[in-house]
């Protein structure tokens, strides 16, 4: 059994979910539609091209997009970029899973930088897909809009800007620690900050 980030008895309700799947490969599409049907999705929107997918984006309020990177009329990366900049609300903010068979590092980075929430390597089994959907359902990353990038915040950890570089955001703090201001704290004041619990030695 695959290690899941939830209990087997946790309930999920995808019966009203509007899922869009864009994949030009017949078998790839079949795998995803069967998988989502098993998860309880009633009628996924199945598209074999970026143009078809964009038509659905304009008409329906979607909950998840699953996009193959190799669409016949446009790459999945360009489709996601266009979606994120489309200002079609709420779909421009919708979670996007990008899928690809061959996933060299350059393609994964492009997937992250085009505004996808996650890049998944094929083949994807049901447990991995469910795990990813559960993760999307708990996602709380801000959405970033800038001249170079529109999509979920690419920073998963708050590590500040790289050493020697100025931050690009207004709330980025400097990596350099300034001179101390005020007197040193006593141990009891430090203890108050950390609230240490009693330890029996």
């Amino acid at each position, binding site marked *: 059994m695959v290690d899941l980030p939830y209990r087997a008895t946790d309930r999920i309700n995808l019966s009203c979910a509007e899922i869009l799947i864009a994949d030009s490969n017949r078998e790839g599409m079949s795998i995803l539609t069967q998988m989502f049907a*098993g998860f309880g999705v009633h009628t996924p929107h199945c598209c074999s091209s970026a143009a078809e997918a964009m038509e659905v984006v304009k008409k329906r309020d979607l909950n998840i997009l699953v996009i193959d990177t190799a669409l016949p009329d446009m790459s999945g990366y360009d489709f996601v970029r266009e979606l994120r900049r489309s200002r079609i609300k709420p779909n421009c903010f919708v979670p996007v899973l990008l899928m690809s068979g061959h996933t060299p590092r350059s393609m994964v980075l492009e997937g992250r930088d085009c505004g996808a929430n996650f890049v998944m390597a094929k083949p994807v089994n049901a447990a991995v897909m469910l795990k990813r959907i559960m993760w999307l359902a708990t996602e709380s990353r801000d959405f970033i809009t800038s001249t170079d990038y529109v999509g979920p915040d690419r920073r998963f950890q708050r590590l500040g800007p790289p050493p020697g570089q100025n931050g690009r955001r207004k709330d980025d703090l400097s990596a350099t620690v300034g001179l101390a201001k005020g007197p040193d704290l006593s141990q009891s004041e430090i203890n108050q900050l950390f609230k240490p619990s009693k330890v029996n030695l």
Partner: protein
Amino acid sequence: MTDSRNIKVKNRLGELMRQPGGRSAIEALRGAEKRLDKISDDLLRGLDRCIARMETAAGQLTDPPDDKPVTEIYRASNDMIAFAGLVGFNSLDEVAHGLCELIDTFRAENQWSDQAIRVHIDAVQLLRGLSKDDNEARERVLDGLRKVWSLFSVRQPLPTPEAAG
């Protein structure tokens, strides 16, 4: 500093999934796996279609290379990766990954060997016809391809996770 803006977005998916009703995670998982089992014959036919596409394109390979058949072989390999492992052909998944990497390497470094491409397609045909229990023959084929990957400094695909396939 670039002019970026942070927007708090409501997680509509999370809200929807927490609605009463639905099914347990384990029921959802079992439901999906059951449905995937039912399409395994279709997937095997799809696998054969991918191999046929590769063979047709391999017949059009030239030296120096024409991009059209090379792209078709790359696409067929990429499609094969999506489901070969799901129907027990993990070795085909490994070969398809290796073939995509090889084509990427050729394109990036301006190298070419139509023989190196053809040997992958021969291997795919051979592995498709092998009995699932014939681990020894399968390993011999994969070992041969690993030498080709090494010769062209191709990033080695991860070994197949299961013995069978």
